[in-house]
């Protein structure tokens, strides 16, 4: 009984739905529920990875029509290389996070039933897998909002805290507005396909077959991009992301940051490359500009945070920006009929999608372990955790290096490919683009460097130095399932960093399907060790040699220096002879980011006030210093406050309609009759 790849994928979704339903039965024994529940999700995500990897690897495309949905518009499922790739990304991270959750969720055992968390966790995964498989507008939107609704309940899991509720509410509003925008865009496309005689217009195949007029295609694209940008957290619509991800349980925020944002990227690629196909160059320019703005602003906001998970959430905004840069460039190249360059840019964007899923998932899992141990999210209260949590520290370090795009790890490879795509832009015919795109390259470099600064801060303040917290709880290392989850994703980060050519060979079917050109042959021109994007003399990078080179020199130096037994003395801190050092004298998150805050201050709304309490009122003898700093996202003031104020104003006007006196109501109906009659004559 041969299984096609889509059968495996649908079995994994089925398994998830069964787990969700059966979870409520095991309500009594919570411990058992956790282990069984999450092992089932692990199996399900493994199945999804297998299906996805098989599809992309051997470039299959198969379709299935489910008997569900409206009789004239049944749910169509389709597993082609594009959905296969995203299925692999989502499956892989959910595989790691499910293992991690077995350990992490045990922390909730004491004071909260976890049944609802597991049910919605399974629905959340099932929703993501279905979004990627959907092949018609109705099923796509249904799975899109199942994913949104499930993650809404997950964000609201610890609902006694006020910021959870506020974040969940903000999240569901932005998600729903985005969904309506996507719905409108599908409506336009479906309308143009068959002119609404029947329901057949809604299937993606019908949309692929139609040639859309430019005006309507632009409207559809802009609506879809707005909708998906709201879900991906692109800058003007990102406000929910730094609110929702920190408050969710860490394994959920790992999944939300790691892969849920990727479903929005999948949506943008599916709409622009697959459904609309022909598009003018300025679409790509829009995506590129939004990508750049998100990247730079995302990292700058991240630098200002002192809440670990909020910092990671803002970094998701930055990395989504980098992915959009790759996609934007590839759209520009496609519109100028340069398939090979488009394939390179697209591969860079998709490679970064996989990388971001891996290291962001790892970082959130690490943050979860830290939160689990110290019950503290504020970095100013942590420090010196490397001594008590060596495993978590080492794995978190791997995540930090990868996200800062540093050589041996995967972050660098995708950012390097994006740079190569930028460097190819001078071959574009339009002179204006030739001048402007390199500016984007500079902004991307700035983002990379700022990310490195931010993660030195994050790792340094959290794990290094002395413990800064007032009370010091007994911190225990994360238990073994959490460590395994993190270790696996760390190894994947290293593997992708060292052997990028294998990954690019595997995902080559993707660029073939979307832009019609393969770059695998040129990318591995010099052999599997060297990654040469277009031509080997143009640019080349060899992951394995860099890793082996550094390790070789390190080992040689270590062996040579340790040939003679030289003692190591442990002494109190030198610090230029200053003895009375205490843990409050260390640099913390706010002080670390002070120089950058001073330089880029104009981008935030900063309220900083210093209050000095001095002996007998003489400022020369300070007793205590109160320093308060509040950094707020500018977009709250520009975009969201006015919208909220306007809607409350409108509702006050509408409230005046209901005055309570019956005569007024009678006048309303009387006037309505008169007006209608007048118009009629």
């Amino acid at each position, binding site marked *: 009984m041969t299984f096609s790849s889509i059968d495996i994928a649908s079995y994994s979704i089925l398994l998830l739905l069964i787990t969700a339903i059966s979870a409520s039965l095991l309500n009594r024994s919570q411990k058992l529920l956790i282990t069984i529940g999450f092992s089932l999700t692990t199996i399900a995500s493994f199945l999804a990875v297998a299906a996805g990897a098989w599809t992309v690897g051997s470039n299959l495309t198969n379709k299935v029509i489910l*008997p*569900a*949905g*409206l*009789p*004239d518009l049944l749910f169509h499922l389709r597993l082609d290389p594009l959905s296969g790739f995203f299925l692999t990304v989502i499956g892989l991270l959910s595989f790691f996070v499910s293992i991690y959750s077995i350990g992490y969720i045990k922390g909730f055992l004491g004071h909260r039933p976890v049944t609802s968390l597991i049910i919605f966790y399974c629905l959340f995964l099932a929703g993501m897998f279905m979004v990627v498989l959907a092949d018609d*507008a*109705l099923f796509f*939107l*249904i799975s*899109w*909002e*199942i994913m949104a*609704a499930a993650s809404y309940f997950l964000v*609201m899991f610890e*609902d*006694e805290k006020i910021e*959870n*509720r506020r974040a*969940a*509410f903000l999240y569901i*509003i932005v998600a*729903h*507005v985005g*969904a*309506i*925008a996507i*719905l*409108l865009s599908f*409506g*336009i496309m*479906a*309308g143009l396909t068959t*002119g*609404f*005689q*029947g*329901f057949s217009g*809604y299937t993606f195949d019908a949309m692929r077959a139609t040639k859309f007029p430019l005006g309507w295609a632009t409207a559809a694209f802009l609506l879809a991009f707005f909708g998906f940008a709201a879900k991906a957290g692109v800058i003007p619509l990102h406000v929910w992301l730094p609110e929702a991800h920190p408050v969710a349980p860490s394994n959920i925020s790992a999944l939300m940051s790691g892969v849920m944002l990727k479903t929005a990227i999948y949506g943008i690629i599916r709409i622009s490359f697959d459904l609309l196909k022909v598009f003018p160059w300025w679409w790509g320019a829009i995506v590129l500009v939004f990508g750049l703005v998100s990247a730079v602003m995302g990292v700058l906001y991240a630098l200002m945070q002192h809440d670990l998970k909020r910092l990671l959430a803002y970094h998701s905004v930055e990395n989504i920006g980098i992915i959009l840069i790759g996609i934007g460039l590839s759209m520009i190249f496609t519109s100028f009929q340069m398939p090979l360059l488009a394939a390179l840019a697209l591969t860079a964007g998709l490679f970064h999608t996989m990388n971001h899923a891996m290291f962001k998932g790892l970082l959130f899992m690490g943050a979860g372990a830290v939160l689990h141990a110290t019950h503290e999210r504020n970095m100013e209260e942590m420090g010196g955790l490397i001594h008590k949590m060596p495993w978590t520290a080492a794995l978190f370090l791997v995540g930090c290096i990868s996200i800062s795009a540093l050589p041996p790890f995967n972050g660098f490879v995708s950012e390097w490919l994006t740079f190569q795509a930028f460097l190819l832009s001078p071959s574009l015919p339009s002179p204006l683009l030739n001048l402007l795109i390199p500016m984007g390259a500079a902004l991307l470099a700035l983002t990379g460097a700022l990310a490195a600064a931010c993660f030195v801060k994050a790792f340094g303040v959290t794990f290094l130095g002395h413990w800064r917290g007032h009370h010091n709880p007994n911190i225990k290392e994360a238990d073994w399932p959490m460590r395994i989850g993190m270790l696996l994703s760390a190894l994947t980060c290293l593997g992708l960093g060292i052997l990028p050519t294998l990954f690019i060979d595997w995902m080559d079917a993707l660029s073939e399907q979307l832009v019609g050109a393969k770059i695998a042959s040129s990318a591995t021109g010099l052999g599997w060790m060297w990654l040469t994007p277009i031509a080997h003399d143009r640019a080349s990078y060899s992951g394995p040699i860099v890793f082996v080179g550094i390790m070789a020199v390190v080992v040689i130096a270590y062996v040579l220096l340790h040939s003679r037994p030289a003692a190591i003395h442990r002494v109190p801190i030198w610090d230029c002879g200053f003895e009375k050092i205490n843990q409050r004298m260390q640099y913390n998150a706010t002080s670390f980011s002070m120089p950058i805050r001073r330089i880029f201050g104009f981008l935030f709304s900063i309220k900083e006030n210093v209050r000095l309490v001095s002996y007998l009122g003489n400022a020369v003898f300070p007793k205590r210093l109160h320093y308060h700093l509040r950094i707020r996202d500018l977009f709250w003031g520009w975009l969201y406050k006015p919208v909220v104020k306007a*809607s*409350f104003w*409108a*509702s*006050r*006007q*509408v*409230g005046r*309609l*209901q005055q309570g006196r*019956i005569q*007024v*109501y*009678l006048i*309303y*109906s009387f*006037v*309505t*009759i008169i007006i*209608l009659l007048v118009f*009629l004559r």
Partner: protein
Amino acid sequence: MPLMILLGVPLLAAIVLAFIGDRKFAPEINILGSAATFAAGIGLALEVYAHGPMLAAGNFFFVDAFNVYLSVLTSFVSMTTAIFSRRYMRKEREHGRIGHMRMRFYHAMFQLFIFAMLLCLLTNNVGVLWIAMELATLSTVLLVSLYRTPSAIEAAWKYFILCGVGIALALFGTVLLYFAAEKVLGEGGQALLWTNLSQVSGKLEPTVLSLAFVFLMVGYGTKVGLVPVHNWLPDAHSEGPTPISAVLSGLLLNVALYALVRCKVLIDGSTGTHHAGNIMMGFGLLSIIVAAFSLLRQKDIKRMFAYSSIEHMGIATFAFGLGGPIATFGALLHMLVHSLTKSSIFFTVGHASQMHRTQEMDKIKGLLKGNPLVGWGLMFGVMAIAGMPPFGVFTSEFLILTATIKDAPFLTPFLLLGFGVAFAALFKKVQPMIAGAAPSYQRNLKAAHIPVILHMALVLLIGIYMPAFLNQWFHKAVELLK
């Protein structure tokens, strides 16, 4: 034959319950009565499904795909409301808010109300339809003022006067309709039958009919609760006992919209222009926007869901006005899923307000902790009514929105605004009630779980897997309404 049972049982039950309305087993009889009605409804539906539209009792009654699914819906929701009202009313008796006499009155009027709605749906005669509508209004007026509180009496008075005026205007419209029909079909009762009118609608006099439609629109529009004439609805639906609010919001609005759509079909047939549709779209859009924005200000939970009913009725009217196969299909589906979801929400709201002894939303907290069924029921109900996909309401909104883009793209921003604001307002109000710790003054109670679970399961089923026969009905109804 099932038609006779369908109408006879409620009437009989009303009379019986008028005498023994307060005995211990009175609620059971009430449930039995509405269950029998529901069974008869299914029988009638099967018959129509098998043999197509049929006339009964010397074409006094006329049953086709359009009104048979509404009558099945009406009987089903009245059954589940009866189940809910058994436990709800017993709790109200314990709280001492209802006396002996009023309980008998309540049960009798409940059954009479169902009879009036079914008569209104099934009758072939436009005049009898008007009378049934008037009877439905009168039977619920006193129910709204059952608690005798000043605001209840005020709400009932406004409901009585405004709907009375509305229906009077509708009568004038019916007179004009009859005047135009008499010219073609001749004297006597023949001129008022839907069947004859629809066949001959091409030859009716357009100017008189459009004049008649204006009066019918404002008249039945008042009963549907469309915005300029909606003011009675929030008061009436929030002051009466919850089962009555559920039935009012869920069913009576549908019946009024059914009557309106019947008239629109006639007018479209005769005038041939899209005027009637445009007027309905105008009213519908105005309702969506005004209701959505007024949701933001509500303090009373039942009042908020009354405004949500105005918004959803606005959507259905807009879709019927838009016309076209997909929009009409969407509108029919919307009427079905809206009444199922809204009544289920009113059940959970009833229990929630009983648990906290108040309808103030600021005082209702921690429902999930207090009573999980009420908590999750309300949460899923609100998600469904706000149009979140797995539920059926999204499917209908999906069809209506996509049809609007094709036929009237410049209206989509208003629809989008309405949906977005309503969604935000609903979640802003409901989320504090669901989440958080349970307050001290919260008394838990045994909730009537069958109706809530039944309704939400049906809405979820329609959202994910639409049964084939239901789809068949809608397509037949769409042919009728084109």
